[in-house]
């Protein structure tokens, strides 16, 4: 009885599979045979609509392929995906939330070689997924750091808006003028992350954090320390004692300037709409530069940022590989970039049409400098793709808290970090 049932069910499955194959077989030969369901890892699906948007658009073009989203906790994303992959229950398509962990998965044999996927010209961040000349993922999103500023507060203090020609000296002067002119709100807010100092220093001095040489950080730290000593920005200890958020500091107009990644645009627009943030006019400017050789709208400002991308699980079923690669190709395409820009996300591929879509969003700034800052920049990766990156960033993170809290002076902290990198990690 039972066996009979199994046979019937089996036949039914085979029949449905072959029927499906017939119906789609004539459209294109590259199409996978039969309906395929791919699982894709994501996080915070309600407020991170990019996964659903890409999945739906892809399914519309390939009705045989369904993308099923697998939601993970955003803060523990890496831990959970690691656990699932280790237990053999990982997703078919792995979203690479942080570049730091790409080599972990790659060295663990979890990522499929996707070098045969052709990426569109001008896409940013692809090199972050390349290990020894082999491509292990494609970027679809690339945030980079810009300067957010509050036009209302600038007007109130009588300080001229950033015009794209700023070096850090101009930024410091503006912060001091703003603080003096506002009497209450600060000129700028710098969040507690190490990247807010180190990211710019690495990118603008062309340093490689894996070298083990960190003397170049000194000027950047001295500058930031003097900013907080002069009271032009909330100092690190106050910020951490009060668990300040950058959304609150900028959104509630406690600070007139905020260096931050472009992901903040979508948050700010939605918080202004919901009333969580005050209603004021704001804009984006290129991040201040080390010297005037890269300032001005004729040049390309140097900044940093990491891409977000998709990889394919190496243990994926063979019959799903073609469909998965198709999805990766789609995610990197201009069509996907348009869709992403439409929901306030900075795609890895930008061109004039994408810029137009992005700034057409209700509540987005309309000035030209914002568009320039968003679309034109030389973006260096925050985390080089290497198995040493996580360890080195850990040591540099310790350096950051030691210096910013004022408990160790810059020179000593840098020397300590250099020692530790040499002893605990080693340089190539």
């Amino acid at each position, binding site marked *: 009885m039972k066996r009979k049932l199994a046979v019937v069910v089996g036949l039914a499955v085979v029949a449905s599979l072959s029927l499906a194959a017939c119906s789609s077989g004539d459209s294109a030969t590259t199409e996978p045979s039969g309906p395929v369901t791919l699982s894709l890892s994501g996080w915070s699906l309600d407020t991170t609509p990019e996964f659903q948007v890409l999945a739906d658009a892809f399914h519309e073009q390939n009705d045989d392929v369904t993308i099923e989203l697998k939601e993970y906790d955003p803060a523990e994303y890496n831990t959970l995906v690691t*656990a699932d992959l280790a237990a*053999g229950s990982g997703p078919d398509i792995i979203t690479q939330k942080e570049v730091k962990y790409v080599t972990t998965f790659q060295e663990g044999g979890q990522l499929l070689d996707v070098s045969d996927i052709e990426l569109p010209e001008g896409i940013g961040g692809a090199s972050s997924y390349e290990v020894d000349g082999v491509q292990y993922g494609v970027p679809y999103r690339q945030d980079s750091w810009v300067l957010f500023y509050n036009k209302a507060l600038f007007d109130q203090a009588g300080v001229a808006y950033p015009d794209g020609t700023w070096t850090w000296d101009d930024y410091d002067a503006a912060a001091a003028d703003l603080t003096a002119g506002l009497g209450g709100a600060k000129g700028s807010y710098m969040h507690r992350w190490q990247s807010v100092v180190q990211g710019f220093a690495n990118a603008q001095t062309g340093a490689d954090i894996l070298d083990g040489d960190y003397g170049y950080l000194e000027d950047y730290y001295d500058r930031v320390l003097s900013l907080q000593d002069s009271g032009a920005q909330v100092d690190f200890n106050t910020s951490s004692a009060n668990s300040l958020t950058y959304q609150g500091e900028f959104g509630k107009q406690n600070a007139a300037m905020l260096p931050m990644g472009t992901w903040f645009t979508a948050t700010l627009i939605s918080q202004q709409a919901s009333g969580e943030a005050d209603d004021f006019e704001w804009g984006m400017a290129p991040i201040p530069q080390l010297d005037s050789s890269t300032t001005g709208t004729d040049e390309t400002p140097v900044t940093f940022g990491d891409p977000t991308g998709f990889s394919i699980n190496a243990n994926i079923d063979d019959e799903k590989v073609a469909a998965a690669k198709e999805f990766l190709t789609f995610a990197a395409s201009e069509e996907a970039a348009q869709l992403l820009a439409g929901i306030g996300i900075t795609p890895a591929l930008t061109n004039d049409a994408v810029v137009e879509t992005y700034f057409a969003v209700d509540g987005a700034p309309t000035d030209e400098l914002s568009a320039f800052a968003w679309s034109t920049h030389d973006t260096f990766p925050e985390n080089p793709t290497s198995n040493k990156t996580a360890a080195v960033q850990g040591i540099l993170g310790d350096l950051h808290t030691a210096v910013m809290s004022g408990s160790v002076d810059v020179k000593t902290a840098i020397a300590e970090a250099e020692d530790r990198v040499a002893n605990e990690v080693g340089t190539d």
Partner: protein
Amino acid sequence: MSNLTEAMVTIERPGGLRKLGSSAPRPRRAAGASKLRPAGRILMYVLLAIAAIGLLAPFFWMVMSSLKTANEVFSVPIVWIPETFVWQNYVDIWTESNMLTWIRNTLFLAVSVTFLQVLTGSFAAYGFARMRFPGRDVLFLVYVGTIAVPWQSYMIPQFILLSDLKVSNTFWSIILLQAFGAFGVFLMKQYYETIPEELSEAARLDGLSEYGIWRRIMLPLSIPAIASLSLLTFVNTWNDYLGPLIYLRDPDLWTIQLGLKSFVSNLYDTNYALLFAGLTISVIPIAIIFLLGQKYFVEGIATSGMKG
């Protein structure tokens, strides 16, 4: 010795056992308090009140912050009482999230885990405390030793194991994980060692088996230990975050801590006001259980049975 046997007879009387746990001890002034003069008493209350403020301040701040708007929670200087109370946070967290499901799940898990932990833990503890057999002390050391290994370091092998058993992403994973911990065994064993051996010896002479001694003498006499084990296990299961995070992926299975964290992180950025509203709600059941449970810590409950 004969006195003890007499005491035993009293204990063995049907109903007598139950009375041990539930009956309030004779009202008596405690040893230390009887000597305190009114002035000393007032001073003590003042000290206790100050201590209570110090102990409850963070909780108070959390409750107050649950009535603020999202961007008001953190500010310089600290704001203890918001200008306007945003009760909407409670409405939002209750209507927009699955609080009820999460509370039901957590309650189910906490009760099952506590029940199993107390049952198997106290049972095993009797073996460790009162039976002599080769390898007992080594085995006990192994139990205690596993407590000394940080969970994060063997989390992945355990996850792979439970995934292979197909119990990950079910309530079973959390129950199996938490119910057989070494903590309960250790706690109960230490408590059993404070119970005079003469009591069980007398019971043995009266023909009670070892299982009978555990059931009829040790269990009733260890009510305070069972109460503290239950309370701590319950609270730990209730507040556990990492365990459910790794094992319970299906939103229908989420516990309160997991659900709350996931709900607020799904907003544009963590809305701490909403989170604190949810956490305030989640503390209420524990506070009630604690208020109910703490009455078992009454002086003399364990020994009152000896007095015939």
